[in-house]
């Protein structure tokens, strides 16, 4: 292993240590955030009460206060079992309302478990006091939970050694699988990675459909707790070819996401900047912009911040820039991307993703003319 590989090996090692270890993250001032459940009825707890005695006791008769109050009798009321685990189903894939959208994948964990990215260790996050970057998202789930193919494709790797290619059990990805999908984006191949599993249920060459079991949640590789490390790679299955999975996993119905490009006044991206997004009920999501190296922005959005699974509604985004607070209200629409830019003292702006200048495609002269 050369020095270069060694650097990124250790870099990933520390990265995955953080995954599934929320306590550590909290101690380093990373706020734990849980996506706000939408349309979730309050959990009802029914405790059967003890049946009262129908014949007044002597002591009760002697109590002057009791004498003045009418006798009330309460019985436990039967009620249906409360439904407290309801979550909105996902939109159908492929889902893309706009020309830049590409929600081509469903969730690798089913909705009976938490199937959204761990909020305090998103794509592009940096391990505190280091420069190690996360190249995917982590989804917490109990040990043994099935992991499903996010879309159809062919298994190209299964086992240990995804990163080190030597089948060793110390590979940071642990027991992992890679699926090369039979569709792409802009003519480029898409690959999904499922890591840290306890068992792999596929083998290379197998064709899997969306929803087929890839394996089971585990804690193999460099991890401190059971979870799934999920990556999306574009064009080639390479550690450095990752993209933010939150831009590719289809949102639940009624939910959208905010994609932002946070820049300084000169138009350069700001790294590792904490941003707060708050809804009208006061629920706040604290997120960080991408680290400068090791992760990739989307070709179209050129973003450095993504927050998915936001119920449609109004939100306020907050940033502190050069000791000045900047607030901005924006709307999230169902199934849609709200694209926002921040450029230093110019502040926030709801924007459309950058498109190539007409100079790039407005070709003259005309063929056939001298």
């Amino acid at each position, binding site marked *: 292993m050369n020095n270069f590989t060694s650097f990124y090996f250790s870099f990933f090692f520390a990265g995955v240590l953080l995954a599934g270890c929320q306590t550590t993250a909290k101690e380093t001032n990373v706020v734990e955030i849980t996506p706000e459940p939408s349309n979730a009825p309050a959990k009802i707890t029914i405790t059967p009460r003890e049946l009262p005695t129908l014949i007044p006791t002597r002591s009760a008769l002697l109590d002057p206060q009791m004498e003045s109050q009418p006798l009330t009798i309460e019985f436990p009321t039967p009620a249906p079992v409360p439904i407290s685990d309801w979550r909105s189903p996902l*939109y*159908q*894939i*492929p*889902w*893309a*309302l*706009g*020309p830049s*959208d590409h929600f*081509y994948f469903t969730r690798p964990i089913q909705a009976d478990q938490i199937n959204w990215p761990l909020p305090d260790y998103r794509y592009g996050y940096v391990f505190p006091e280091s420069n190690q970057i996360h190249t995917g998202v982590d989804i917490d789930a109990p040990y043994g939970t099935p992991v499903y193919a996010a*879309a159809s*494709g*062919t298994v*190209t*790797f*299964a*086992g*240990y*050694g995804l990163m080190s*290619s*030597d*089948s060793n059990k110390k590979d940071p990805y642990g*027991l992992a699988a890679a699926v*090369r*999908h*039979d*569709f*792409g984006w802009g*003519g*480029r*191949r*898409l690959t999904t990675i499922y890591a840290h*599993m*306890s*068992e*792999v249920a596929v*083998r*290379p*060459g197998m*064709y899997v459909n969306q929803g087929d079991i890839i394996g089971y949640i585990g804690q193999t590789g460099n991890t401190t707790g059971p979870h799934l490390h999920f990556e999306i790679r574009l064009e080639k299955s390479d550690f450095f070819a990752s993209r933010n999975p939150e831009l590719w996993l289809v949102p639940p119905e009624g939910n959208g996401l905010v994609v932002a490009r946070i820049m300084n006044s000169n138009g350069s991206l700001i790294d590792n900047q904490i941003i707060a997004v708050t809804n009208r009920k006061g629920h706040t999501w604290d997120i960080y912009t991408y680290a400068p190296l090791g992760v990739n922005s989307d070709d179209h959005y050129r973003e450095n911040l993504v927050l998915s699974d936001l119920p449609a509604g109004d939100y306020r985004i907050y940033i502190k820039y050069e000791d000045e607070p900047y607030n901005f209200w924006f*709307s999230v*629409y*169902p*199934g*849609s*991307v709200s694209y926002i830019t921040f450029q230093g003292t110019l502040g926030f702006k709801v924007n*459309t993703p950058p*498109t*190539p200048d*007409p100079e*790039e*495609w407005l*070709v*003259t*002269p*005309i*063929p*056939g*003319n001298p």
Partner: protein
Amino acid sequence: MIAASVQNPNATDLVVYDLESSRLVIPQTNLPGSINGITWMAGSQTGLLNSYINSENMAPLPDIFVAKPTQTPGPGGRKGVLPLKKVNAPYPFLQDLAIDSYEALRVTVGKIAGWDFLAQLENAYLPLTEPPEPGGVENWLFTGRGIAVNALPIQAGWMVVSREDFNGLPYWRVYIKALKQDGSQGMPITQMVWDFTPRFQGDPTAYEEGGMEVDPPGGWWIDFTETAKRYGWDRLPAMSNWRTFYRGTRFNQFIYDGLLDWRIAMIELYPPEAIATFTPIPTITQTPTRTPWKLSTKTPTRTRTPSPSPTRTATLSR
């Protein structure tokens, strides 16, 4: 006498009935272009029409291009793809029979629009091993007879589309902006155009409908769909999920099918076996691993089986 135009997604036909004799005066005839209006003239019905039909106006139009295959068919009569000259595309190739038509169309569009719209393509020929967009079936780009024109101008206001439904399927008419907006190029758009953007901007109706009709933009425009049709390039209907899948609209895809269906068009390029086992991922030989696959299993492995032979530890303790 009744004259009627019959509209199809990619053709306009004319048919004329004689009510007195209950006969077809002109059977359904494919017209080289769309009908833009009616010309009223004085005279007897049959006499005028017959003289018009027999005049030079109804003589077959000269070919606007001639397809000249340059390749000798390979094994099984299969054809090949040829490179497009000075075209920017991921794979700038088209099937031998389609390439002459494309180049003639490119010159014509360049002349009437004032800019070389077909110098850049989102896609031309797509090799069988390349990944298509998801959800598509019978992708014509694989046949070398399809193109996906550059869709970026629609975001810059240099392209608009109008929706035309046939047999319950939405088709799109593509207009591109003329370079000169002084009236010397193009014509005003007279039909409503379809705007896709409101469907992701919080308008519930547009969200349900996949967009909304809006007034046509001002200025001078080229009907690219009409021009392409004259050169044999047909449009495709939107896929069933187009309302929520932008690329499923297929407004920028055109095919030169030569009256072939997709399978026959594929067999022109590939052996039938390749179509029967069609998969964008033909083999697993490119697996980026040098080691055998290994499954994690709860089954004890041989290495963990206790050995009956004395261990080295026992030897040392003796």
